[in-house]
């Protein structure tokens, strides 16, 4: 969606100058913006939603690198002689189902928003937030179960990795919960970012957290 009125002319000039090579305009309005509500914005002001999508994509890559560094350390370290595998508490499987369910309700909420059913959106969004908090509480309970069994952070390398994986994922998910609350509570100034865009960007992060948790769980379960 082209932004200003003069864009077609500019496009023509550029087309001519460049001989058809790289004559495409820079991303103007973030082509996949939620509801077509960003058509009246000027292209290069910092309020085109494109930067939120790009931002979250790059942010996700960065977070992924963080966990990959820990995962590769896990794989290298588990060859050591002092490695005692951790028995994963059964509660973790329940937590996983809770987290997967939260991704589902998040999508339902966004579908409501697309149908401009704000009440339905708020309801499902709240359910998602609650499920996220329940997951976090479940993780803390799982820690307490391990502590009762006498397995601490400092017990052995495997337990250290268990606590840092769950802990780091929990901190990142807590950021996701904050984003959920932020999207639900804030009165959006449509000139900067719409609720649709904010909800979509948050949902990407949330689903990524979901997938990351499945990966970490598989790593700890299969790689013990």
């Amino acid at each position, binding site marked *: 969606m082209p932004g*200003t009125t003069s*864009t077609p002319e*500019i496009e023509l*000039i*550029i087309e001519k*100058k*460049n001989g058809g*090579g*790289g*004559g*495409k*305009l*820079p*991303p*103007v309005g*973030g082509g996949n913006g939620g509801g077509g509500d960003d058509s009246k914005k*000027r*292209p*290069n*002001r*910092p*309020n*085109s939603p*494109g*930067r939120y999508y*790009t*931002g979250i994509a*790059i*942010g996700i*890559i*960065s*977070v992924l*690198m*963080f*966990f*990959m*560094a*820990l995962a*590769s*350390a896990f794989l*290298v*370290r588990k060859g*050591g002689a*002092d490695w005692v595998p951790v028995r994963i508490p059964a509660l973790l499987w329940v937590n996983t189902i809770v987290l997967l369910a939260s991704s589902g309700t998040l999508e339902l909420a966004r579908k409501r928003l697309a149908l401009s059913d704000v009440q339905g959106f708020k309801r499902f969004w709240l359910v998602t937030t609650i499920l996220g908090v329940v997951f976090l509480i479940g993780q803390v309970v799982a820690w307490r179960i391990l502590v009762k069994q006498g397995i601490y*952070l*400092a017990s*052995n*390398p495997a337990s*250290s*990795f268990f*606590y*840092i994986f769950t802990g*780091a994922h929990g901190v990142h998910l807590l950021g996701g919960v904050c984003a959920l609350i*932020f999207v639900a509570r804030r009165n959006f100034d449509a*000139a*900067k*970012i719409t609720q649709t865009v904010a909800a979509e960007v948050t949902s990407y992060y949330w689903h990524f957290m979901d997938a990351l948790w499945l990966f970490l769980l598989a790593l700890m379960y299969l790689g013990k």
Partner: protein
Amino acid sequence: MVTYDDGSNASASTGSGRSGRVFSTRHKTIGRQYLWVSLASVFVGMVLSALLRIHASWPDSAIPFLGGLDTTPERFAAVRLLHGSLMVFFVLTAAPQLGFGNFLLPLQIGAEEMAFPSLNCLSLWLTVASLAGMTASFFRSEGIDLWLESAAIFSLAALFSALNFCVTTITLRTAGMTLPRMPVTVWAWFVNAILSMLIFSVLLAGCAAILSDRMLGSNFFSTAAFLAQQPANLVRQASLPVLWQRLFWYFAQAEVYVAMLPCFGIITHLVATFSRKPVWKERLVVLSICGVGMTGFCVWGYHMFATGMNPYAPLVFSVLASSLGVPAAFLLASWLGTLWNGRIQFTTSVLFAIGFISLFIAGGLSGIFLARHDLSRAAVSQDFVIGHFHLVMGVAATFAILAGLFFWFPKLFGCRMNETLGKAHFWLTFTGVYCIFMPMHWMGLLTQSTLLPEAQRLALASAGESIRTVVTVATIWTVGAQLLFVVNFSGSLLRRKKVEADNPWRASTLEWSVPSPAPEENFNGPAPVVYRGAYELTGPSSGELAPQHLSPGSLAQKAR
């Protein structure tokens, strides 16, 4: 989330009031603040290096503030660590990327602001907090935890600004600013941001694990397991200073590439502007910059994962480190090719750029010895390595920063630095650094003199003493020469003689299409439109670079 207001507010409050705020979210203010942080750090770091040299030559002299330096090796290592952290983190990383980058990136791509201004402000103040932490760790007897925390905070700040740089370059380019038309500086900042994104998230994970080991007693890097994987000769001398150093190098290896990439961009830009010629083989230069970024990541990854694990690893490292020479050679060829037959204006800025190229060649040649894994054992001695990386990284990058500072000073502060003083400063510094770091290579090679017969060895040992004195005198000379810079810098700022033209260097990129100093609103009114690449001539043999924002019609009118 975003506190950028759309100009309506800017006119309501006074312009200077907003940009003068300490916690500003304006990219120009933040860029200048990064430069001030660097300026403070570089002078402290320089004084520390002079103290270290004086101590090396005259161990008995009483050095102010650092009493008891010679009795405790830990203290000596701590001074070195402070010098290294200040210079590497807050000068070499902060100035070319965060200082110039924050100020110039939006201007050069025709944007009003960075993509996430609040995040930008946050990352500046995290950097300042990290600076405070690292300095404080020096005054604590067990400062390593604090130092690690500060390094983690710095990694976080670097991640935030790298995110900002990536998103700004991808989404906020103005109409017509296609990727091939971006100035090489923008390319360098962009590639560097991607590299930082990958490197610093891994560093953050490493810091988290080490800190958890030290403070919570976890077992990620247990000392026994770590030492078992190290070569035997390193284990034997694993005293505290060595551990400090190893920790430092763990960071510094990644930092080399992060520091050098934006400098490549700045030098390419300056060389083309002052030769009044297009960058020679511009596409190849951009590819080389991408190549440096990629090999940089791989070399560092090698250090991270393979040290002491695989007997073939040294070979891999050697090949990778040597392959870094290929893109570096392309860059060098392009700089020389651009300068060749150019009508060069010998301003201070271009002198520093040529100085950079000279240092890069000199340092790169000694790097060949270090990249060969079999030769490096003979050449690796403290002084040889110090001489090499100071030439190629420390001093060369500082020259690039100074070249950029002289060039963009009108855009930053609205006045020009004095050229005569600047040139005197250049020549004194240029001769000074060569007198410091070239003899240092010799000192490094002299430590291998045990291979020689007894009589020659004694003669060489006495020669080593005199070389050491030469180096120390040259250090004092060079540090003294920086007074000229201080006088020039503060004098220009205090006098504030208005720059006579908006575009004093007849440069072609977008930042020179607006008044100097850059106004509160970058591009007052509609966003600029870009019609051509950053380094294109107005005519086939005109010897003038065409401004990117002038339409072909108005350019023809101007020519007439």
